[in-house]
C-alpha cells in the first residue's frame, strides 16, 4: 500500500485546467499531439520509466514461454539453493525455481494492475464525470459517496470482503481493489470535469443535440485524456501495491503465483531468518520497479502534457 501521488496536473481541485486554452494566434502551428510527441521522446523520465515497465512487462509476458516447466510452483530443483547458473534467482525451501515464480508473478502483478486500475478508473470516471458534469443534487450525493468511501479505510474493508468471499483468482482480487480504490481519482476527475463543463464547447454540443453521456465521452473526456491516462497509471500502480499487501497477509489468490504471494511464502517459510535473501529480494524489487517506473513515467507524462512543467 502506498500513497498514490495524484497527477500533479491539477494539484488542487481549484486549479484551472492547464492543458487547454487559447493559444497565441501566431504560435507555432504544431498540433497538440505532435507537440506532445516531440516532448515525449525527449523526456528522460518518461523514457526511463516506460523502458523499465516495458522490460518487466516483456519479461512477464514472454518470460514464461522460455521456461521448461509450466508450473512455477513445481519442485524442480535442489532445496534452498542460492542463485547460480541453472537457477538464476535460486530456489525456495521446496526447490521451486524463484526465477520462474518471478516471471509468472510479474504476469499476475501486471494483470492485477490492469484489472484493479481499470475498474477503479472506470468507476472513478463514471462517478467523477457524472458528479462534475451534472452538478446539483447528483453531485452532492456522489461527492458524499466518494467522501464516505474515501474516509473508510479501504484495507479494512478489503480484509473483510476478502475474508467474506474468499479470493480465488487475480481477477477477483483486482475487482475488489478496483471497487475500493477509486475515490481520490473520482474527486480529481470531478474537479477537472467541473472546469471543463463550463467551457462553451460543451454548451455548443448540447445545442447540437448531444446527450449527457455523449458529451462526457465525446467532448469532455478527450480533453482530459492525458489526465485520465495519468490517473489510470497511478491507479494501476496503487492496485499493484494493494494487491501485494493483500497477498502478503494471506488474502491473495489461492491459485498461481504473484509477487505478493512470493513475499508471503518467503516470510512464512522464514527466508529472512534462514538467510535466503534471494527469496524475498526479487519480488520486492519487481513490485518496486514496476510501480516506481510507472510513477516516474507519470511525472514524465505530466511534464510532456503540461507546458508549465517543461524544462525550457
Amino acid at each position, binding site marked *: 500500500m502506498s500513497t498514490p501521488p495524484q497527477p500533479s496536473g491539477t494539484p488542487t481541485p481549484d486549479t484551472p485546467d492547464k492543458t487547454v486554452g487559447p493559444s497565441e494566434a501566431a504560435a507555432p502551428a504544431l498540433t497538440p499531439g505532435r507537440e506532445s510527441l516531440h516532448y515525449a521522446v525527449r523526456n528522460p523520465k518518461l523514457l526511463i520509466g516506460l523502458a523499465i515497465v516495458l522490460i518487466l512487462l516483456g519479461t512477464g509476458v514472454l518470460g514464461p514461454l522460455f521456461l521448461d516447466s509450466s*508450473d512455477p510452483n*513445481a*519442485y524442480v530443483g535442489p*532445496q534452498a539453493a542460492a542463485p547460480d547458473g541453472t537457477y538464476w534467482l535460486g530456489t525456495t*525451501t521446496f526447490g521451486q525455481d524463484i526465477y520462474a515464480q518471478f516471471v509468472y508473478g510479474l504476469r499476475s502483478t501486471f494483470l492485477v494492475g490492469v484489472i484493479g486500475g481499470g475498474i477503479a478508473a472506470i468507476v472513478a470516471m463514471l462517478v467523477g464525470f457524472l458528479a462534475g458534469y451534472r452538478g446539483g443534487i447528483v453531485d452532492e450525493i456522489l461527492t458524499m459517496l466518494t467522501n464516505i468511501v474515501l474516509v473508510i479505510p479501504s484495507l479494512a474493508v478489503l480484509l473483510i470482503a476478502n475474508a467474506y468471499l474468499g479470493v480465488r483468482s487475480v481477477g477477483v482480487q483486482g475487482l475488489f481493489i478496483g471497487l475500493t480504490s477509486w475515490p481520490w481519482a473520482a474527486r480529481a476527475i470531478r474537479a477537472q470535469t467541473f472546469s471543463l463543463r463550463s467551457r462553451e464547447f460543451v454548451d455548443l454540443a448540447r445545442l447540437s443535440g448531444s446527450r449527457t453521456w455523449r458529451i462526457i465521452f465525446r467532448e469532455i473526456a478527450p480533453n482530459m485524456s492525458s489526465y485520465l491516462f495519468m490517473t489510470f497509471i497511478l491507479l494501476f500502480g496503487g492496485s499493484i501495491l494493494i494487491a501485494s499487501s493483500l497477498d502478503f497477509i*494471506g488474502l491473495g489468490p489461492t491459485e498461481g503465483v504473484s509477487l505478493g504471494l512470493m513475499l508471503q511464502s518467503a516470510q512464512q*517459510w522464514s527466508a529472512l531468518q*534462514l538467510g535466503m535473501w534471494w527469496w524475498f529480494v526479487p519480488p520486492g524489487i519487481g513490485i518496486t520497479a514496476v510501480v516506481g517506473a510507472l510513477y516516474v513515467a507519470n511525472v514524465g507524462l505530466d511534464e510532456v502534457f503540461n507546458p508549465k512543467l517543461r524544462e525550457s
Partner: protein
Amino acid sequence: TSGGSSTDGDKGGGTSGGGAMPRNETLYTTGTQWGPPANYNPLRNWDHATGTKGLAYETLFHFDPNQGKLTPWLAESGSWTGGKTYEMKLRSGITWSDGKPMTAADVVYSYEIGKIEASSFHTLWDWLSKAEAVDDHTVRFTFKQARYQEWDFTLYGQPIVPEHVWSKLSDEQVLNGVNDKPVVSGAYTLKSHSQDRVIWQRRDDWWGVKALGMKPAPKYIVDISNPSNEVVIGQLNQGQLDLSNNFLPGAASMIKAHKAVSYYDQAPYMQSANTAWLVPNTTKKPMDDPAFRKALAYSVDVGKIVKGVYGDLVKPADPTGLLPQWDKYIDTSLTAKEGFSFDTAAAKKMLADAGYRDTDGDGYVENKDGSAIKLKLQVPTGWTDWMEAAKVIAAGAKDAGIRITTDFPDQNALNDLRGKGDFDLVINNERQLSNTPWTYYEYMFQLPVQKQQNTVNFGRYENKEAWDLVQQLGGVRTDDEAGMKAVISKIQDIQLKEMPVIPLWYNGLWSQATTGAWTNWPSDKGDSHYAPALWRNWLEMGGFEMLTKLKPAK
C-alpha cells in the same frame, strides 16, 4: 499500558520487569497457545492457557509413551476390582494451593462434572454409572459397560479440580469460567498473564517433591502465545526462547548448525506425535467408492511432502497410520498384502479398473455416470506446511487423472464445514499418540454419524462391522496385548480395504530448544527421554517429567 493482571498477592511486583524473574530461573516456551491466553479452566481442554492442565491441575495418572504404561500421579494405584468396577487409591498428603487437602470427594466431583449436559466429556456417563468416595482416599467407579481402553485414556486425561472451590460455582462458570485465580494441586501456580503470555510460578510446597522425588527445574515458566514461525526462529536465535513446540521450516538447518537441539540430532529430528490423514467425505461421489479412495491413496507422493515440504523433519506414515510407538499392533502380513504406496501408474490402473475413465479427454477421469469429478482439498489457511502438502497432493492426483483443487479457508470456517460434512477432502490430525490405538480407530469409525461431527469420523464413513470391532477393542483389557492385537488385525483388514481415511505422514512432536539458559533437553542420547512438549495432554505424557530433568546452564 496495562500490561496484564497479576494474581494472588503479587501486587506491584508484577510490573517490575525482568528483574523479578531471573533469566536463569525462567523457562520461555511457545508453540502451544494460539492467541491470547483465554482461560485457566482445565475442563476447557481446547482453549485453556498452556499448562493449565499439567502444571497447575493434575490428573490421576500420567502415561509414559516409551513404556506404553500408565504411571500413578495423584493416584497411588488403581485397579479393576471386578468386571465393571474400578477402584482407585488417592495419594495422601496432597494439598491444594489454598492449603486444603485433596480427597476422594474432589475426584468424584471432578468426574461428576461430566454429568452436566453441555460438558465436553458428557459421553463418559453413557458408560460410567457411578463414582463414589469409599473413604477419603479411595474412589470406586462403577460402569454400565467396561471400556477398558477408553478408561485408561480418561485416567490420565481428566483433570481433578477442588470440590470445595468449584462446587460453589454455577454450571455455566464451571464449564466456561475463566478461572483466573485457580486453586491448584500441581507444581505451578498462575503468577500473571497478559495478552501474549502466561506466567507460571513454581510452588515449592508441591506434594510431588516429597512423594515423587521430583522437582521441576524452572522457577518460572513463561509461555508465549504463538508468534509466527519466523518470529520464533528469530527469538530462538537470540536465545530469548528456550523451547519452541512449533513446526519451524528450516529447523533442520538450525539443529545442524547447533543453534537449537531436538530429540534426534539427525533426520527425522523429531519424534512422531500424530498422524496426518487425508480425509475424504465418503458421503460424496466418487469418494463413497473404496476403489476410488484407494486409487487416491496411491496417487499421493508422500515422499515429496516429507522431503520437499518438511525437509525430512517427519516420516511417511505406515499404511495403517499407526504411530511408530504402536508398531507392535501393526499386522505386517496384512500391510504387505493390502498396503499401498505412491505409484501413479497403479493409481491410474485402479481408477480404470473401477470404471473411472477420462471420457472427455481433458486429462481427468470422470465419474462412472460421465459427470466431471472436481474435488476440493481444504486445509486451514496459514498452516503453511499443510498448504504446501495439499498442493503436492493435488499435483500427484493430477498426474493420476484426478482433478483436485486446493482451497485454504480459515481454520474455524473449515472446522465448521468439516463438522457439517460440507467438504470434499481435508487433511486432519485430530488424534494424538495415546495409550491405545483404540483412539485412532474410534476416530476412524465412530457411529452413529451425527449432524455435526466435531471430533471424529469427519468423513462420515459408516461401517457397522468396523464400529462393532472398535467397541469390542474398547472392551479388551489394556494389559491383554494379544487380545488387542487380534481385534486390531481385523479392524486393519477393513481399514486397508476400505480406506476411510488415508494416512499421509507422521506429524512430528515439534520441538526445538536452545541451550543458553537450560540444558539437558530430552534426546535419544542422554538421560532424559521424555517428550519435550508442553502441548495439551503432552504434559501428562512426559512433558512435565521433562521439566524435572532440565538443568540451568550455569
